[in-house]
């Protein structure tokens, strides 16, 4: 130590160290707010304010013709809803519709993705054909399926007629209404599931498949050891999205059945529309909407809890 001190130059009083002025530093501090600003403003104007207003509305009795002139009724709308069998019927229809649509869309979509991930002739054409429904406008989809399901001259009745089954009222018979709506919805949304899962499948390194070949794994073992663990997170996310979108879906259901037959497809969203514009009860409609929001939030919360558990298990 003493040696080092002796050869180091004598200490000179150094000026204190200061930060050099930096525009870059300022910019780094404020730029994040500038980037997220537009999105936040958009969310506030088009999401937060309407939601808050909708919840306010749900505590009033407001006729459609005088949207500004509501009278406060407290929790009356909610009390009426929770006491009415029609609301529970609507809730049940929503759950049934969502569960069926999500199940079929995810299973069929994932299955098609697995098939289309293999190399075969005409694969690109097949992918294009299967993706096509996603590109068709929703209203057009509903109208086309409306014709297909038409009682007197729909294609479906032609086909079942050939098979010896009598004509059915696909959209007017309470036995079939929900099935018809689910079928149409699955046809429309399944391609998205397929595309997303396919993208995830294509990101699996080929070496992993080769490793299972070296280890002598069969198709099912390979699926379980390599494919499924890779695509599972994607399938979970797409299931969440499908669920939220199904809870909110309106056009297909309303245009096909209008909530009928006998309220069998009267999901919460269709119910909101009917309360607001047929019964002209904005307050009641808003209350249904608020409960629907709670349902969507519940699904999301359950999803995030599940994700956290999986992440904890992975670590």
């Amino acid at each position, binding site marked *: 130590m003493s040696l080092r001190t002796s050869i180091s130059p004598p200490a000179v009083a150094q000026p204190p160290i200061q930060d050099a002025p930096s525009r870059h530093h300022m910019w780094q501090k404020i730029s994040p707010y500038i980037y997220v600003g537009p999105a936040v403003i958009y969310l506030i104007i088009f999401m937060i304010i309407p939601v808050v207003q909708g919840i306010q509305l749900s505590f009033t009795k407001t006729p459609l013709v005088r949207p500004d002139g509501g009278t406060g009724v407290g929790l009356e709308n909610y009390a009426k809803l929770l006491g009415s069998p029609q609301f529970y019927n609507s809730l049940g229809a929503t759950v049934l519709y969502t569960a069926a649509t999500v199940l079929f869309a995810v299973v069929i979509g994932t299955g098609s993705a697995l098939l289309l991930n293999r190399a075969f002739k005409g694969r690109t054409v097949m992918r294009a054909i299967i993706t096509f429904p996603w590109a068709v406008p929703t209203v057009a989809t509903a109208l086309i399926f409306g014709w297909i399901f038409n009682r007197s001259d729909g294609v479906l009745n032609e086909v079942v007629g050939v098979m010896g089954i009598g004509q059915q009222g696909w959209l007017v018979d309470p036995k079939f209404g929900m099935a018809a709506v689910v079928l149409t919805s699955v046809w429309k949304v399944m391609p998205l599931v397929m595309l997303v899962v396919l993208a995830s499948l294509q990101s699996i390194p080929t070496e992993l498949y080769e490793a299972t070949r070296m280890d002598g794994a069969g198709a099912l073992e390979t699926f379980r050891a390599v494919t499924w663990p*890779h695509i599972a997170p994607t399938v979970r996310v797409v299931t969440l999205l499908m669920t939220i979108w199904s809870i909110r879906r309106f056009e297909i259901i309303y245009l096909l059945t209008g909530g009928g037959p006998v309220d069998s497809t009267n999901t919460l969203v269709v119910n909101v529309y009917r309360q607001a514009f047929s019964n002209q009860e904005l307050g009641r409609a808003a209350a249904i909407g608020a409960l629907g929001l709670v349902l969507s939030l519940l699904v999301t919360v359950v999803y995030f809890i599940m994700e956290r558990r999986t992440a904890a298990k992975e670590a």
Partner: protein
Amino acid sequence: MAKLSLRNISKRFGDTKVIHDFSAEVDNGEFLVLLGASGSGKSTLLRIIAGLTDATAGDVIFDNLRVNRQSPRERDVAFVFQSYALYPHLTVRENIAFPLALDKFKGWHHIPGISTIARRVFGSSKDIAKQVSGVSAMLELDQYADRKPGGLSGGQRQRVALARALIRNPSMFLLDEPLSNLDAKLRAELRGEIVRLHRLTGKTFVYVTHDQVEAMTMATQIVILHNGVVQQHATPQEIYTRPANTYVARFIGSPPMNLMAAAVVDGQPVVGGLTLAAPDGPGVGQPRLGDGGVTVGVRPEHLSVTVDGGRQGLPGTVRRIEDLGADTLIGVQPDPALDLKTWELNRDELIWIRQAGQSRLMAGDACTVVPEPGKASYFDSTTGENLAPAGRNSDAGAVPLGA
């Protein structure tokens, strides 16, 4: 235990031929390195041996059985991938046990529910657990057994991949650039590890790499491939001392062999006015020098450099000094008046000299390059073939090894 024979293997991808009529015999217990630049076909060849890729033509023979039609698993070989190819959602222990657990899996175990129970049972099976812990201990993986591959470093992952290969006790190990994704220190460490495993198992190893250091330090036999064609198949020593052609001469060695155009006058090679002595190295035959020109090759360590203008040698100017600590590399630009034509053969126009210790030379110094007598190689100036007869053990592929 298997002796590997590759007979007339060819492989095309569409119109691109990546392997041309490759033949080689590898004795049981050899450590064969397939060495080549990227695109040389070495990995394709390894995948053909493994059964991951089918050859367009030719036979893969283990002992006396043609295995062309067998699946990778049936061939009983293990494959180690450059990217490790570990199953990311399984722990280290499960990854290593995977091939063993598969052996016990039957078709009906796939029924949901039963599969979970079956996996539990195999996972906790005593003999599997014993084998896994044995192999983990061998590769010092014990303390990571319950981690997922994502929580391991590159070197640890490659150890897991080696363990997964080892546990099956295969007849042959195939390794596809297993160390390429690791840093230099880990590479050196795992090189030693792999050589140790080779000694321990006594099995045949076929190892693909583009790294000449790996090839020289690990191999018992090296095959050098260039554009799908075998350039030389020999021991590391022979490849270094008697490269079969100018490609091999330039590919092996760092810096590579210096190549210079030479005239032949009265049967003696003459480079830039300097008459070289005939080669006399042990095991190297007399080259057949024709009357035309030849290409002379001299390794950097067989040259010395001096500032003494009176010495017989090639005059030049020092251009580069690279001090490596133990050695110094000196790049000398030969006097342009000599018209040496090194530029046709070497990438830079410099002659490189390796000198032990430090050098007092500086860039710009005039100097003379003096070759060590009898240490030069001679190549046909048109075909690039080495003019000295090959050693007993080597040829471009066809001659059996270890005779």
